[in-house]
């Protein structure tokens, strides 16, 4: 682990620039709740505008060397993408109801077009992002995407999931390594062996979480038995309460796994990412992230969702402020690509696929 997550010893003359995040939960809460209300009142149409406002808020509060990031997507483009995604979903659901054969045909069709959608989505996300007036871009090719998102995905069940770490590695090598900032290409130098080590650790955490969950369930059952409580009958009020409580408990336990995954995979992937000669330096503490995600989920559940904006800000603040970049030279000399992508040349087709494909 350590050799992967720690950067190299830096030669004299390299400078480290930290990322900063200045958003606050209280401020974001007001934005979030107004966006939520407008989304519901407009039956979902406003969600595209809400998405742009959310992104602009998080980008505009993320500082590097005195300048913030900027998000340029037009809500109209996002709305179009969401309508198409909704249509694809409707086709999928309808096919499943009509006949299993049709469903299989639709799934195969989607697996075939998935690589294309992924490339367009990664392009979209990169091209609408900028720092100091220089746009990001994405150079991933369809052929590589077809290997990662069709072939390897289809092989996944055949190999009983054993290639999951390898798939994750290929996926990040593609989605991060093919990024470009202006004319400066990203390089992704993580190695696949390190992914297998991280996923083994995650498996250990998963087993641990399940043991703790089972232990808790056992204690609850024991206490209930000692208190001479018969198990609640189906249909009774307490049956529903117990049902929702175990669902919430599952969410909370899952968040622990999520925190460890973010920490370890983040250190590995981002820590081996270079922007030109500059190297990213994440310093995530996986246990701290697990605790953060655990408390976040707990508070979101307890407050019936009202804590969501604070949870998102806490996560963003931790992630951003534990990132820095080791500089060879300075950050002032990046140059834009020959043709700035985005509005005119980027092409409308890229804009319609705003699909969130997280790390």
């Amino acid at each position, binding site marked *: 682990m350590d050799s992967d997550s720690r950067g190299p010893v830096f030669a004299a003359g390299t400078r480290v620039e930290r990322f900063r995040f*200045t*958003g606050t939960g209280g*401020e*974001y*809460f*007001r*934005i979030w*709740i*107004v*966006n*939520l*209300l*407008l*989304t*519901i009142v407009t039956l*979902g149409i406003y*969600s595209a505008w809400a*998405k*742009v*406002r*959310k992104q*602009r*808020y*998080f*980008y*505009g*509060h993320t500082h590097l060397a*005195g*300048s*913030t990031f*900027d998000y*340029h997507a037009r809500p109209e483009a996002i709305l179009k993408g969401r309508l198409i995604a909704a249509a694809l*979903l409707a086709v*999928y*659901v309808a096919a*499943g*109801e*009509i*006949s299993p054969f049709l*469903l299989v045909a639709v799934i195969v069709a989607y697996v075939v077009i998935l690589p294309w959608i992924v490339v367009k989505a990664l392009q979209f996300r990169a091209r609408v992002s*900028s*720092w*100091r*007036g*220089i746009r990001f871009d994405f150079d991933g090719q369809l052929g590589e995407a077809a290997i990662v998102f069709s072939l390897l995905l289809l092989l996944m069940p055949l190999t009983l999931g054993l290639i999951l770490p390898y798939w994750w590695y290929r996926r990040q090598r593609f989605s991060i390594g093919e990024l470009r900032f*202006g004319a400066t290409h990203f390089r992704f130098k993580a190695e696949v062996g390190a992914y297998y080590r991280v996923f083994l650790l995650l498996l250990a955490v998963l087993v641990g979480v399940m043991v703790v969950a089972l232990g808790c369930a056992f204690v609850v059952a024991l206490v209930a038995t000692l208190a001479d409580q018969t198990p609640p*009958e*189906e*249909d*009774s*009020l307490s049956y529903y309460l117990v049902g929702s409580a175990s669902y919430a408990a599952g969410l909370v336990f899952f968040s622990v796994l999520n925190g460890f995954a973010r920490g370890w995979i983040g250190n590995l992937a981002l820590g081996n990412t270079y922007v030109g000669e500059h190297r990213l330096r994440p310093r995530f503490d996986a246990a701290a992230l697990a605790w953060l995600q655990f408390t976040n989920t707990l508070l979101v559940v307890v407050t019936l969702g*009202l804590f969501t904006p604070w949870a998102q800000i806490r996560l963003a603040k931790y992630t951003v402020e534990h990132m820095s970049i080791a500089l060879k030279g300075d*950050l*002032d*000399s*990046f*140059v*834009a690509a020959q043709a*700035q992508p985005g509005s005119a040349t980027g092409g409308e087709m890229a804009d319609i696929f705003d699909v*969130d494909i997280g790390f």
Partner: protein
Amino acid sequence: MAEFSAPAEFFDGRTSRPSAVQVRVNPRGALEIRGVGVELDVPRAELRVGERVGQATWTVELAAGAALAFAATSEADALLRELENSAPKRIVHALERSWRWGVISVVSTAAALWALIVFGVPQFAVRAVALVPPELERRLGEHGIDWLDRFVDPSTLDAERRAEVETAFARVATTNPKLAALRLELRRGGAIGPNAFALPGGIVVMTDELVELAEHDDELSAVFAHELGHVARRHALQRLLESSAVALITMVITSDASTATSLGTSLPTVLLEAGYSRGMEREADEFALQWLSSAGIPHERFAAILERLERASGSAAIPEFLSTHPTTSARVEDARR
């Protein structure tokens, strides 16, 4: 005209080198950008004020990828408000800043969600049902029965008893010429116990356990009449559309696509587990009681089987306002009225 001026960072769109500049709206309404090595006058038509969100950095895009970044100060606020001529953007920005509107939004969001799910979704479903072709509805029913057969066994009733049950069914079915393609499916319920339900497209399922529970075949006819009430109003389809709509609303709010991917597989489950709303049960009961009257069967038959069903399933009392089903006692009372 007031003077609008604020400091900003200027990016030329060619390199990542920032320049500190002073920005001013000049008397002709154009933007004057002045700094070391920067001297630009930009007409309003050539700039785009980015949406301002909270205190996050505010930006103005200029031609050819150049941009201005303003720290969220009151002078920048005044300057950008002068440049930005979109009223909706200004209103949204103002709403998002106020705590009072935050609180009002929480209350209105809860109210809007409640209204949407309690009134909007059923209204949508009633209208959407009319658009679903009967052929599709029939297939949904076939799909449902296939799915059900994974959990229940074939009926073990003897041929004679089956014929009697078929007769009780036909007695109700034939009096409704409007309802074509009605079909009875008998199954050994096992875990689902004494039960009867209507699938989309006119398939009525009854378990052996319910047949055994009945003390008179008129009781079975009464139950069939109730289920045909659901069929006549296409309640199964309506319920299916409602749960899909609720799943979609959840998805939009949480922006979580994973909810949607399980949607397709969960629909039949939702259909059979969620049961019908109180209003739907009342409608089906009314349909059943009307038919009983027209067939000269006392309403007591319906009341009796309902009461026996409740005892058999031993369901604990949920206060009616929490339950999607009307309480059995209320339904029995209505039947005896």
